């Protein structure tokens, strides 16, 4: 009897395999927070790629390592993958040293993403604080490109100052779009040229009325934003399972194995990163 090794599967089925992608453009949006536009080297990959708003990828910089990055582009805009990346650790610092046209590795998309099928037919309230705009931009453009699927669509976005606002020019131009409420605010405006609201993010709640029985709220931001925004939403009687938030942990493998992104009993990478507020308060380690 001849002994034969059983081979698992073809190499492209390896969930850990990074696919090479070219950095097409780099937009220096704010210091230490650039938008990288990527395109897969293999055209078949470009065609095959699908993601949901709120999902993330694992980005490899050759010779440095991997880091989880949320996707900023909408699945409705195919061909170019946009990642808004903060210079924070080893991998992202190495990425910032790469010139345009360099190759990086991408695998994914991972995570559950926003439940856009359930959200359809409802009003949509997107609330972003600071860098929280990065994952929410995917949802925003998804909603604007599928405008017929949603009732009213509102964005509330607060940044420290105009210079800290991600996608500032894009959002300012969207403020002109009909049938979309674009509420932007900054904590302070040292330039004196900011024509939108000045004040903390929760102050935007006074500018709008909502029907919580038919609204989904998607909130992403630093802890302080969750603290005040969640309080506002609960005061307005939003259902806890219609408040969606996205968690950030150390998603190393992205596929529910390595254990680093665990929160309570869940792995952020497969059970999240999007959790309802109800899920979140039932995760023991979240508070």
């Amino acid at each position, binding site marked *: *009897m001849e*002994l034969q*090794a*059983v*081979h*698992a*599967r073809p*190499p492209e*089925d*390896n*969930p*850990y*395999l*990074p*696919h*090479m992608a070219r950095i097409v453009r780099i937009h220096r949006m704010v210091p230490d927070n650039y938008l990288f536009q990527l395109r897969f080297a293999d055209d078949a990959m470009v065609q095959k790629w699908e993601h949901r708003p709120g999902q993330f990828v694992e980005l*490899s910089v*050759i*010779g*440095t*390592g*991997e*880091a989880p990055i949320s996707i900023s582009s909408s699945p409705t805009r195919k061909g170019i993958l946009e990642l808004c990346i*903060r210079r*924070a*650790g*080893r*991998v*992202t610092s190495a990425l910032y040293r790469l010139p345009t046209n360099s*190759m990086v*590795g991408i695998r994914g998309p991972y995570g559950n993403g926003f439940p856009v099928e359930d959200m359809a037919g409802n009003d949509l309230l997107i609330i972003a604080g600071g860098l929280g705009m990065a994952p929410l931009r995917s949802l925003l453009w998804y909603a604007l490109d599928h405008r017929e699927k949603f009732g009213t669509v509102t964005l509330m976005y607060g940044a420290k100052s105009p210079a800290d606002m991600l996608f500032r020019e894009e959002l300012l131009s969207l403020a002109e779009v009909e049938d979309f409420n674009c509420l932007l605010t900054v904590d302070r405006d040292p330039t004196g040229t900011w024509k939108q609201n000045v004040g903390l993010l929760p102050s935007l709640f006074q500018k709008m009325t909502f029907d919580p029985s038919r609204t989904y709220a998607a909130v992403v931001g630093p802890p302080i934003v969750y603290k005040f925004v969640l309080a506002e939403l609960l005061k307005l009687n939003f259902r806890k399972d219609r408040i969606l938030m996205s968690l*950030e*942990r*150390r998603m*190393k*493998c992205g*596929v*529910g*194995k*390595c*254990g*680093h992104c*665990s*929160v*309570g*009993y*869940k792995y952020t990478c*497969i059970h999240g990163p999007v959790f309802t507020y109800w899920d979140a308060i039932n995760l*023991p*380690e979240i508070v």
Partner: protein
Amino acid sequence: MKILKMAKENLDFFVSVLPAFGEVYAPLERGKGYVFERPSKWSDVRLKYTRTLLPPKKLMLPPRETTFVFDPDKGYQDRLEEASKPMVLFGVHSYDIFGLNILDRVFAQSKYTDPYYIARRKNTAVVGIDFEPDDKHLASSLNTDFVDSGFDLFLSDIGDHYLVLVGTSRGDDMVVMSNCLMTRPTGADFEEYKRRSMQRRASYKAHLVMEDLPEILEMEYHSKVWDEMGERCLSCGSCSMVCPTCYCFDINDEVQLGSRKGERIRSWDSCLLKTHALVAGGENFRGARSSRVKFRYYHKQRGFVAEYGRPSCVGCGRCVEACPVQINIITVIESIRGEHHGIASSARASS
């Protein structure tokens, strides 16, 4: 399931066919304990052993492995070929086979499957063997004192013979290749098996009540037991290294000096280590030692039950043996249940 029997005197001949199925690993004596290693001669193999220092996990998920080689020009190339080397794991206890079955759930039967693990698991024949429990085995409490899958053959001592469960077609090939050394068991053989099996079950010295543990853990999340454990635990990670079902790993890229070519290395990690939940920017979601000890218990005894329907503990007793400060799962769980006051007070672990 096909059940045969084999005279013990034929074992030497039987094991001589095993190398045809891959590199053989078996329990050997090493220092005061046992290890799964490649025997240089069969007489070194210990058929009766308590437990090995490391579980068979070490062969399915090696402590350190290269998953990819990378090169700026060629991108990432997998190293699956090396994971496909056939092996035979001889003399595995039921709880360790159960441990592999639990790893299967995570690595081979979930939404994303791990090709490195699957290649090793599929190319490894497992021959199980029964054991006599010592004062640290909890297999009867965890229902891992018997397995009905995850092995190719399973040998149980019935006196002059082994009763042989044939679990797979590959197991059957082993039987055929050993020139039909195996014969059909009689009713008396089954009676002897059952008698020994009941006797063994009654001989367990260590016990845990598992049934309502998830609820109790849910209620005792803020118990001071976890703080006491945090005071004692050294965060060394030994318990998770020796655990048959702890599978956390780290991924690091190692670069050749003066180039951007290198290897992506996956290596064992532990939720007990301080950097486990550290994210870029410096925030650590589990900076307190007590939060890490607690997390390990909740993951294995609460979260895993929710996700997979059973705890990811097989009752091997290795964590009890490995802990340098005598943290013992039995006393921890009894404390949580309120049957003990202070985890340090019990001498049950060391007696």
